[in-house]
């Protein structure tokens, strides 16, 4: 980084970072990472003009800049607001933000079918993730939900408009990645829908990318439809020589069968590069691809559960806590077996002939010691 370039200092939830002028609050937060990063349902880095619509990334600007430290009166869409030098932003530390975000999640869900059990997107759905973190546990919407008829947009893509949250990403893909747009937003307000007006197939070479950008299960891959839950498949980095696109994909395996091909997504769920329809829909044989190795999946994702050892997945790490924590002992964690008699480590549950009963857990010998409990100090931390 050259010395002359003036960087802007921005503080988000108490963490200060220096970013290039012109960076949005969202992208500054992504540079910090973790909880500080607001969720984004409509913004997509690769798509020009995207963002600003879903309102899930609203944040509070507690100080506009060092020069003008007045707070901004309204919450702002972090994906479309650029940082100023000395700006102070509150995301999860702002009650207003959390309340507004809970409201937005509720708005997004009132007309969403919540048909996750039969939705191909389940397990990799941004709306699912969002509602787990920010949603309420019950709906207050007592009315019939809005529904639309399902449409096949040609042989490869199914449009399930009822699930759509109107992020506009697929429209931007058609505008910016393909050379001809045949679908768009029709009607307005709560009647607005993604459609072609008259029955038309989306058949451009790159139109399959609308599936990857769709944050919900509104646009799904017909060649993968109902084949498998995504968490039963393993994403593998693969490539091939393709005359149309980069040919770099994630091939989703079940056993040694490729069930699905998608673009390679980064940690924010955005594809690294667009791929063509041929790679996506027509190359399902293992012989079509050069396999590079397992793809990284966020360890919190349901897809990662139990698939891999090593750096991906939830395999128990080998290092003791004291090493990971640079010599300190964790004060929040305790050995559950010191207070509970259920599921002792020496008992192999799968070896039992039926469901486990309390009689299967023999009472421990009384050692005369007090069982280890959470210390007063850590109770305070927990509370």
């Amino acid at each position, binding site marked *: 980084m050259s010395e002359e370039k003036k960087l802007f200092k921005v503080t988000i939830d108490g963490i200060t970072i220096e970013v290039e002028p012109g960076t949005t609050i969202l992208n500054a937060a992504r540079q910090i990472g973790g909880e500080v990063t607001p969720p984004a349902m409509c913004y997509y880095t690769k798509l020009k003009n995207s963002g600003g619509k879903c*309102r899930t990334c609203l944040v509070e600007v507690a100080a506009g800049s060092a020069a003008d430290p007045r707070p901004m009166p309204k919450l702002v869409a972090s994906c479309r607001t650029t940082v100023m030098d000395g700006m102070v932003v509150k995301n999860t530390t702002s009650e207003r933000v959390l309340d507004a975000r809970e409201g937005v999640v509720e708005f997004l869900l009132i007309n969403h079918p919540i048909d996750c059990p039969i939705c191909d997107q389940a397990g990799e759905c941004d709306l699912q993730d969002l509602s787990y973190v920010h949603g309420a546990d019950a709906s207050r919407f007592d009315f019939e939900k809005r529904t639309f008829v399902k449409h096949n947009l040609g042989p490869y893509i199914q449009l399930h408009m009822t699930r759509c949250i109107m992020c*506009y990403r697929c429209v931007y893909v058609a505008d910016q990645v393909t050379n001809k747009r045949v679908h768009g937003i029709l009607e307005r307000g709560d009647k607005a829908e993604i459609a072609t007006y008259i029955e038309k197939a989306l058949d451009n070479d790159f139109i399959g990318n609308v599936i990857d950008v769709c944050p919900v299960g509104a646009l799904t891959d017909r060649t993968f439809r109902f084949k498998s839950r995504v968490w039963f498949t393993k994403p593998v980095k693969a490539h091939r020589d393709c005359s149309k696109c980069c040919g770099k994909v994630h091939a989703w395996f079940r056993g040694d069968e490729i069930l699905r091909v998608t673009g390679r997504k980064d940690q924010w769920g955005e594809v690294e590069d667009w791929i063509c329809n041929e790679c996506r829909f027509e190359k399902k044989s293992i012989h079509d691809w050069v396999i590079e190795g397992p793809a990284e999946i966020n360890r919190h994702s349901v897809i990662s559960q139990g698939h891999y050892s090593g750096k991906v997945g939830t395999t128990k790490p080998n290092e003791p806590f004291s090493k990971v924590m640079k010599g300190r002992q964790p004060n929040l964690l305790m050995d559950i077996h010191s207070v509970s008699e259920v599921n002792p480590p020496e008992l192999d549950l799968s070896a039992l002939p039926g469901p486990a009963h309390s009689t299967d857990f023999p009472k421990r010998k009384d050692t005369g010691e007090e069982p280890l409990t959470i210390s007063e100090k850590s109770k305070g931390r927990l509370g």
Partner: protein
Amino acid sequence: MGVKLLLDKVHIEGIRYYDAYRKNGGYAAVEKALKTMSPELIVDEVKKSGLRGRGGAGFPTGLKWSFIAKPEGVPRHLVCNADESEPGTFKDRYLMEFLPHLLIEGLIISSFALGSNVTFIYIRGEYAWIPEILEQAIAEAKANGWLGKNILGTGFDCEIYVQRGAGAYICGEETALLESLEGKRGNPRIKPPFPAVKGLWDRPTVVNNVETLAAVVPVINMGGEAYAKIGVGRSTGTKLISACGNINKPGVYEIDMTISVEEFIYSETYCGGIAKGKRLKACIPGGSSVPILPANLLLKTAKGETRYMNYESLSDGGFATGSMLGSGGFIVLDEDQCVVRHTYTLARFYRHESCGQCSPCREGTLWMDKILKNIETGKGKKKDIDLLWDVQRRIEGNTICPLGDAAAWPVAAAIRHFRDEFEWHVDHPDECLKRNFGLAHYADPIEVVT
């Protein structure tokens, strides 16, 4: 009697046409501005006048004009917002229908001040007969040398075109208007950038309301300082009020913002009192988006002072006990009107007019409409009132454009001031469709819920 600056000549026969308009002092302001003033001087004069946007927001016009970017070689545009669609508001239509030359005159001066050689009037599609009136006035002005090339030998060229919308309230929002003018769906843009930097076709643009642009004519004729002396405080000049609802004389009135609300409603010069000898129950003083006020808070502020028809006085007390002058759409409800039903029609209106782009507005306006319909038709529950409050609260301030606020405020104010009427609906499901019940203690002091 109040001063009249806009409608003073409206009753002269033939004033709609050029000859009568010119004979009665028309186009003198263009002559003065183009021959004796520089664009900067005109902007200064408008600043001095204290003229505020008459579309509803009340933003100082001169200040707005001074924001326009002037990059080298990029054309700039003035766009006249004639998409008058706020329920209760019909003043711009009156101006355009009866005094088209006043608007054209204001447009020429403002175009000169802003450097707009191509100026558009964007008019709501439903006013389908008015473009002809405006186009005829434009043709007359052009034939007499007030428009076209090298106007009055100053070297300034200007053309004015009229373009019709096609039915969308949202196009009254200035960036949605610009999208519509570009032939697109009326989705408001995400700001910044503001139109003054990137407006029509990405060029610097100023969008002003019809009445604002017409008011530029008296500002130039009499000078900014003299204009600022009319009215009171930061409410300078005159304002058109379109009065409707249960009053004896609905119509468009020009007021000088020093008269009281009581005088406006009861004086023979203006509304002429409540129709059919009934009593005043409530009023939405500035177009459907602004908070409804019960009679007691309308005529007097919470402090017991007389409330006046101007920006400051109408908003005295904030949203807890006050409202806004807004667009000047003055809707009066008599004692027999049902606030719940009225609020329901407004919620339905906003649901119908939401562009659908952002989630709180798209889903929230739908939800409010459905809950209000239930309450109005006797299917509501007590908890629905709190839910309604919560829904409007989570729309307000969280949307791309002000339509979300506009939809939330009327619902909030109706619950705030008429909660017992909502509860009555819930408690009397069989009776609530009978409309003539009236809220007995409408004029009593009402406890304020914040």
